[in-house]
């Protein structure tokens, strides 16, 4: 696509000038770039990952992990307790996301306003942005014909337990049900940023550098005057020695929930912004795996058509003790390689699961983090800390119980939790005791973290937050953050639509700071 230059085409240092420089091309960055280009501003986007299109999406897990996953899928939290999953490509994590597209619940926006002083991101302000995004991305409730057998079993099991089952809003157009959403849609049906906001921004004059990693911010007092970036060799991920230098009126960090706090910490900004890297959340995802008598073929059709949303908010008793909930509950979709990596056991016990793979299904939950973690630099290494204890642990255990009960009610013969001791249950009466006994110490369980944020919390107090309600970094004239790093807490639903709506809000302040 003209307007996109990839690293291998950059044979000498490049100097660029633009009204706004955006770092990161995922939901946050691409949506911002589009909103600014629509206002007639010149925009340059820097993306450290490669530019891949549907011709590169070969649906092979090992190939695709290497192309589009941050850390090639090998990143974990500091104690190995959490698998960190994030984007590293043009379009960011939207290229491997499931396309679940929830509006931010009103109760959460109220908490952000009331408890954290967030202004201008209320439901009335965001609603027109949600409407626009839903039109742009063809968001619609999942129809039955996209559901796979695992989705149907999940709905049946949950319904039989008396849970309300909702259709998940999906950002898709012309889905042919290959099931390879997580490896990049080879049909351009999933409405990732790669096929929506990025080409539209480029049509309006934005330019994008792929394989280019922002390295250094150069300030004059409160003003950021230049950004220096390394051109990367895609085959090795290492700098080629060439540089891209950008002068712009305003700069927006949209490097994602892991990338933005890390980058700003590397600039030494932690000294004057004590909240930088704190308050980190990631929606830890506990999973359960189940064997059914019938084929469920979980890897085809869309990942999750239905969800149980009634446990989204945690419920407490009159004395304030936790009762249940604090997560969304959904059917899971994984492909053979990932399943093999996380199914229980080695040797014979692992083989039994693998040889029955078409009958294997599962459930997943996004935990609404109650205990927050942190991102820190130790020397030149990034340390992500995610607490799997206290209130988070209670929610994880409760989610496992609900998952197991749903799967058993749906007819599962055996349910496994993927923990180091290979805990399994075959009957609902065993679930509570089995889950209570699971060892939640780090590295004993497979927990994934696909929804990072919080490390640049929005708020009015520079001691407790990193950006103000206009997304501007405290104490800076023209440096902004437009990704989920700014969320004061997790949004309690999949975050993509919230991220994009926040970018649409931020565009006004960024446009005016750019001097245009």
């Amino acid at each position, binding site marked *: 696509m003209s307007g996109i230059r990839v690293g291998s085409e950059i044979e000498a240092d490049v100097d660029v000038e633009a009204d706004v420089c955006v770092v990161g091309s995922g939901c946050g960055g691409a949506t911002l770039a589009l909103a600014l280009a629509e206002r007639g501003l010149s925009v340059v986007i820097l993306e450290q990952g490669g530019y891949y299109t549907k011709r590169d999406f070969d649906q092979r897990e090992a190939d695709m992990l290497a*192309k589009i996953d941050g850390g090639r899928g090998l990143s974990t939290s500091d104690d190995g307790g959490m698998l960190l999953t994030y984007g590293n490509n043009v379009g960011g994590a939207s290229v491997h996301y499931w396309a679940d597209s929830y509006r931010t619940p009103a109760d959460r926006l109220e908490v952000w306003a009331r408890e954290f002083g967030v202004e201008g991101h209320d439901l009335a302000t965001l609603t027109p942005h949600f409407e626009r995004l839903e039109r742009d991305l063809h968001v619609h409730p999942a129809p039955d014909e996209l559901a796979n057998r695992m989705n149907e079993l999940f709905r049946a099991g949950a319904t039989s337990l008396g849970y309300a089952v909702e259709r998940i809003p999906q950002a898709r157009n012309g889905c042919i049900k290959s099931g390879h959403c997580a490896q990049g849609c080879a049909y351009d049906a999933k409405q990732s940023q790669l096929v929506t906001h990025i080409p539209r921004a480029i049509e309006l004059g934005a330019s994008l550098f792929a394989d280019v990693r922002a390295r250094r911010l150069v300030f004059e007092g409160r003003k950021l005057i230049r950004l220096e970036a390394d051109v990367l060799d895609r085959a090795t991920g290492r700098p080629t020695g060439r540089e891209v230098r950008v002068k712009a009126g305003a700069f927006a960090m949209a490097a994602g929930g892991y990338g933005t706090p890390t980058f700003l910490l590397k600039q030494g900004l932690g000294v004057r912004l004590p909240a930088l890297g704190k308050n980190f959340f990631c929606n830890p995802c506990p999973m359960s795996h189940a064997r059914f008598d019938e084929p469920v073929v979980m890897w085809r059709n869309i990942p999750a058509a239905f969800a149980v949303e009634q446990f989204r908010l945690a419920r407490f008793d009159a004395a304030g003790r936790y009762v249940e909930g604090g997560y969304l509950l959904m059917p899971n979709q994984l492909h053979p390689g990932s399943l093999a990596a996380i199914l229980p056991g080695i040797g014979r016990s692992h083989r039994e699961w693998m040889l029955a793979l078409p009958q294997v299904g599962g459930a997943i939950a996004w935990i609404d983090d109650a205990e927050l973690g942190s991102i820190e630099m130790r020397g030149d290494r990034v340390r992500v800390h995610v607490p799997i204890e206290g209130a988070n642990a209670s929610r994880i255990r409760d989610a496992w119980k609900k998952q197991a009960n749903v799967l058993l009610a749906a007819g599962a013969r055996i349910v496994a939790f993927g923990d180091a001791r290979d805990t399994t249950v075959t009957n609902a009466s065993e679930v509570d005791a089995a889950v209570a006994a699971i060892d939640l110490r780090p590295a004993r369980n497979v927990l994934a973290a696909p929804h990072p944020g919080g490390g640049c919390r929005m708020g009015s107090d520079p001691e407790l937050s990193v950006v103000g309600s206009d997304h501007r970094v405290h104490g800076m004239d023209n440096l902004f953050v437009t990704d989920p790093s700014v969320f004061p807490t997790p949004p309690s639903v999949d975050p993509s639509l919230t991220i994009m709506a926040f970018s649409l809000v931020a565009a006004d302040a960024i446009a005016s700071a750019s001097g245009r």
Partner: protein
Amino acid sequence: MVLLSAGGALSWWTVGYTLREGEVALGLSPKAYCVVRSLVELLCAGSDGLPDGVAEGVVERIDEEVWSSDDGTREDLESAIQLLEHLPPWFGFGGRLSGLSIEQREACFVRYLQCDDTVIVQAATALKQMAHFFFFTRDATWGAIGYDGPWVAAPKLPDSGVRYRQLADEARGKPA
């Protein structure tokens, strides 16, 4: 992390680790390559209609992954492998992991996965996950597990994979 540093410190002991004909270690040290081979023999055994993991190139694919990783990840994995190799005596097994019989290796590895030390669990889990992932993403395994395969017919290697293969061929003395 103290234990991982110990793993790093054990890397000097290289006697008895020899790459086989055709093997090249670009990401792992030759010793770690041999240890990973012994783990792949254990975790990706050719039975039940499945091919043999070593013959299928799983060790080489793990080496490619390590070669492609950032320095921190590579150092951690190398140390983790060294550690697993030298720990069996602490778990009641005589000898190094790669030298144990398959039955003893399995028993020892299960002990690693279920032991009290988080660093050992983490190291063993990482290796188990990589071996299983790179085995069951080989198309030769799909028939046995009932996976009907991707809908896109032709694989397209990542740039890192193309570069790794070029370098591996050069190291084997084959023309690029």
